[in-house]
């Protein structure tokens, strides 16, 4: 899988590349509009992460360029400017997703996977990990061919952890992903623990398990 990151802030770019390279993606980068425009014109990618505020141009014009070239890359707009206008405009112009800064590395990873999966839908309808099979379409789960019922939040937690398998997922990242943007000011993230406990019970017969990283978060481990 080939991914292009268009981002002008070098440290941000490093973090994003680091995060995605751990997933064994082939990552290329561009830090200016001109460089990005050249790479888009010359190569094909599976997914493009696009910062729309570039020093030498508006990233939305790159989206237009992609469209004009008839390219089908999955595009995730990454922006520090979480304005509704940009979001709507970006999605209308054919972007697949919109990820406002700051985000958690786990969230970036999950979003890229979601886009890649949607793009390569035919070959890969189910998510399989160990003896666990997930059908994203019906949001159902089987463990060793036996259906296990998860509620919405348990399902979201599990798929998020699977997207970030063997990687650390912080409590904050998990809470924001599963409970949404506005929940995050509530007291503490301790409430997640009881959800994880329930999930662990339902995964008893699975070859995956939810491990804890002391004080910080969780990690999906394969037996």
């Amino acid at each position, binding site marked *: 899988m080939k991914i292009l990151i268009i981002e002008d802030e070098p440290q941000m770019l490093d973090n994003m590349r680091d995060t995605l390279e*751990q997933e064994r993606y082939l990552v290329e980068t561009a830090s200016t509009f001109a460089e990005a425009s050249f790479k888009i014109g010359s190569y094909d990618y599976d997914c493009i992460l696009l910062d729309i505020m570039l020093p030498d141009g508006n990233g939305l014009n790159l989206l237009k360029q992609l469209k004009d070239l008839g390219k089908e890359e999955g595009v995730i707009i990454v922006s520090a400017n979480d304005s509704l206008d940009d979001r709507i405009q970006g999605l209308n112009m054919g972007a697949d997703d919109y990820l406002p800064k700051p985000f958690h590395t786990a969230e970036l990873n999950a979003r890229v996977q979601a886009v890649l999966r949607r793009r390569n839908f035919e070959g890969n309808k189910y998510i399989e990990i160990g003896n666990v099979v997930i059908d994203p379409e019906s949001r159902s789960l089987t463990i060793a061919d036996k259906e296990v019922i998860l509620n919405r939040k348990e399902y979201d937690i599990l798929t998020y952890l699977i997207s970030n398998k063997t990687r650390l997922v912080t409590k*904050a990242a998990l809470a924001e992903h599963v409970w949404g943007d506005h929940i995050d000011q509530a007291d503490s993230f301790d409430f997640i623990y009881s959800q994880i406990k329930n999930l662990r019970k339902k995964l008893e017969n699975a070859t995956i398990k939810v491990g804890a990283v002391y004080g910080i978060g969780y990690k999906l481990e394969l037996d």
Partner: protein
Amino acid sequence: MKLLNYTSKYLAFLLLAVITLWALAFYYAMLDEIYDSLDDGLENQKILLLKRAKEDPGILDNNDFNKHVYSFTPIQQQQYENHQERYQDTLMYMINEEDFEPVRIYESTLKAEGRYYKLKIITSMVEEDDLIEDLVSYLIGLYFVLVLSILVLNNLLLKRIWKPFYDLIAQLKSFNIEQKPQITLTPTAVEEFNLLNTTVSELINSAHKSYNEQKQFIENASHELQTPLAISINKLELFLEKNSLTDDQLMHMASVLDNLGRLTRLNKSLLLLSKIENKQFQEAEPIDFNVLAQECITDFKEIAIHKGIDLKLHATDGIQFKMNKDLARILLTNLIKNALVHGKPQNPVTLSIANKQLQVRNTGTASPLDAELIFARFKKIGATEKSTGLGLPIARAIAEKYNLTLRYTFDGEHTFTVQFPK
């Protein structure tokens, strides 16, 4: 009162005063002229009578007004010498009018046939009351004609002259700084209107520019803060993944991450508040608050259970209101969040929808809080360290944006009420 009628009103009053004064002056000038001309006629008659007396001394015996309009009375030389010419106004019975009418008597003396006579000549005089009456009625007529012509002039001519002005006002009325100003100016030959047009359009343009600059500033400030925050958080997350740390080290890292998270939330909240106050949420759609409330309760279920709080919805009414969907959700979640954070464990938090009111009630401190202070920014009342102190100010800003009232009351429970229009 409209500008046109306003000037007409003053003109009508002014005209009334001017015409009244003018009528008085005109009346006296006219009267003076009439007397002058009558007196001239009387003097002329005296000269004619003198001439006639030479030819026909018989007329000197005429001593009353029955036959003629003159009378002769013999007088002494002494009286003749002392006499002064005079005019006198008096009344005399007129047969044709069957009434006493004013007449003017000219008293003079003359010497004829070696004798002295006092001569009186009368002439019918203008009827003053008739004159005044006529004058008044004609002037009233004139007044109304003038006022009417002013009204007609105002409504036809002035309306056309003032058209650019009214056009501008009509457009300013619907002017909204959030949208791109689209004021079309009517070209006019009047210098003042041109000045007004150019001034107004300059004002609007600069206001719109400031508005955009402010909007841009918020966006830039957000950009400047979000990126370093994102870098720090991601760097820490990557660091934690790549290194195995001791529990003690992890604790410290967790604390740093937590604080970065707080900083992020604070930044986002400030941004949200500025955006609401800068009216940047223009899209609106009908929101079913019963559905939304149920969704929010589902979102918060785990947190409530974790705190041992029974979070429930009690609806006896339906609330539909047109507003921005994100803001509606933020309004509700902020109120529920606040109730959950401050609510005592093992006590209920109740969301109720009744009488077009949405209420969130929670138990907490036993005494009421300062109703104004709790909506002020960064006023944390006995709050946990993790709250931003912006939740309720944001809720209030959202309510105010849509002219809803959000108020706090205490009746053993802390109650926040959003009143929707009935």
